[in-house]
């Protein structure tokens, strides 16, 4: 296709503008994390810390129980990811392979569930979990995360199932394999990459989640990383910028790494889920 040089220059200029807009807040966070208090207090902050230091990181760990919070987050996110995938895979299979009323209702639910404000959900959930004595407990939070991750997990997984040719399963059935046998030894291996991607996505969703954790966990020892991060911001909104930046940066690393791994698959999954057979 013909593109004039002028248009090309314009395109590169626009792309550069996007790059700057996307990158600068993150670079500034990094820069702030390595600045000593003296540089943060003065006017005229610079992009590159003049006197880079790791003191902010040490102070962040001293000020707030970051390690324990990270461990809580890790436990909750891992459990939620595993349970969500174990529970969602069979249902996604049914949604993809059967055109039953149930499967259609489930697909409808996936879409509708996106529209509800959490506040309408959280009050009754709070009461239900309280009755089950699961309030202020990590298992209770995991349950909520599973349900919360389910719509998108079902959506992604159903897309992956559709990508597995049904003929393979039918061939196995002709060979006399039972239903469970077919699912375990024919379908599951082909689905494995999709299942891993979905689990990782559920993991990130739970690792990043804030609202439910804020409402459901009251004991300081049980709180997750995002909730603990907000403790760096004082009641008057005054924050110790250095440690705040350091802690925020550390909390992002796991999500960034996991996301970098699965980014392509997520995009693929969204597309696969969107394509109707």
């Amino acid at each position: 296709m013909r593109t004039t040089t002028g248009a090309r220059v314009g395109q590169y200029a626009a792309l550069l503008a996007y790059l700057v807009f996307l990158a600068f807040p993150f670079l500034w966070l990094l820069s702030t994390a390595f600045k000593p208090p003296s540089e943060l207090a003065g006017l005229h902050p610079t992009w590159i810390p003049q006197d880079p230091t790791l003191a902010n990181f040490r102070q962040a760990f001293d000020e707030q129980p970051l390690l324990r919070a990270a461990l809580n987050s890790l436990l909750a996110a891992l459990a939620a990811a595993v349970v969500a995938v174990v529970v969602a895979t069979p249902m996604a299979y049914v949604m993809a392979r059967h055109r039953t009323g149930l499967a259609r209702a489930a697909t409808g639910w996936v879409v509708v569930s996106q529209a509800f404000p959490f506040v309408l959900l959280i009050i009754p959930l709070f009461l239900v979990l309280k009755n089950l004595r699961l309030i202020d407990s990590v298992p209770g939070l995991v349950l909520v995360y599973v349900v919360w991750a389910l719509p998108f997990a079902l959506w992604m997984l159903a897309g992956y199932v559709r990508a597995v040719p049904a003929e393979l399963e039918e061939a196995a059935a002709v060979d006399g394999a039972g239903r469970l046998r077919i699912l375990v030894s024919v379908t599951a291996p082909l689905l494995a990459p999709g299942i891993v991607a979905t689990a990782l996505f559920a993991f990130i969703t739970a690792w990043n989640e804030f609202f439910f954790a804020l409402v459901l966990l009251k004991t300081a020892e049980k709180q997750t990383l995002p909730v603990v991060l907000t403790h760096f911001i004082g009641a008057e909104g005054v924050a110790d910028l250095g440690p705040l930046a350091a802690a925020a940066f550390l909390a992002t690393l796991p999500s960034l790494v996991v996301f970098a791994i699965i980014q392509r698959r997520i995009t693929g999954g969204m597309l696969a889920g969107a394509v109707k057979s």
Partner: protein
Amino acid sequence: MTSVTEVRRSAPRAPDPGRRPGRVVGHGPWFLVLPALLPILVLSVGPLLYGVLLAFTDAQSGRTEPTRWIGTLNFRDLLHDTLFWESFRIGLVWAVGVTVPQFLLALGLALLLDQDLKLRWAARALAIIPWAMPEVVVGIMWRIVYNPDAGILNETLRDLGLGGDRDWLSGLATALPAVIVVGVWAGMPQTTVALLAGLQNTPRELHEAAAVDGAGAWRRFRTVTWPALRPIALAITALNLIWNFNSFALVYVLTQGGPGGRTRLPMLFAYEEAFRYGQFGYAAAMGCVMVAAVSITLAVFLVGRLRGGEEA
């Protein structure tokens, strides 16, 4: 209890696929569905209905007297609650103010990424960052950017000689625009990825044929790209509108709804009502009003757009 009966009722409704030839899975797939259906019913559908019921009661946190039905009293109170309607208005301004620029910027970026440009990989990599970040961290990060003294925004303005002594997040006039910018930044990647996926599905031959026929870039976009992109654009915009209207964490971290309630989104309002003041019933009523508003807006939006599509 209700949920259990519902499961039983819905299970036999699934037709027996064993009767259909060519289907491997027979005998009704209920046991495959149950593990996901049970938690959905108990912890999602159930609570939602319970939440709607709560809106018609005087439920409060930590009260010893039994909760009573009060009919539509909560809704009648809500009707006269000017604070809530102010918050509702802010929520609409926020949702539209974020969704529209988000879509336009994402469309621009997606079109660029669809071209054969050299720095594409960098933009793709960078676009991950806002998506992967915890919302709390996004909020914290932008607080640092907006910081009056140590922030890069004011420093840049000072360098350019444009003042630079503003406290963006505390100023009555600047707080809402400032958080809207953060909302746009945070939600752009998802929209971009969705639109880019749509772009890559548009038929390339059609594009080339149009170019050969001498159609300019704008014409090609209008006649070839846009019709193919429309369904995805509609879906992602509708979702963004919903997500933005219901968002909480970003603004909670950035301003906590301040200054003077200028950024108090409906979610923050309802959260405070429920978990600071313990007014469960009243907050549930707010939730119901929000759901109704979202549903109506969406219906109008989608019907309007679909009709527009028929004319085009």
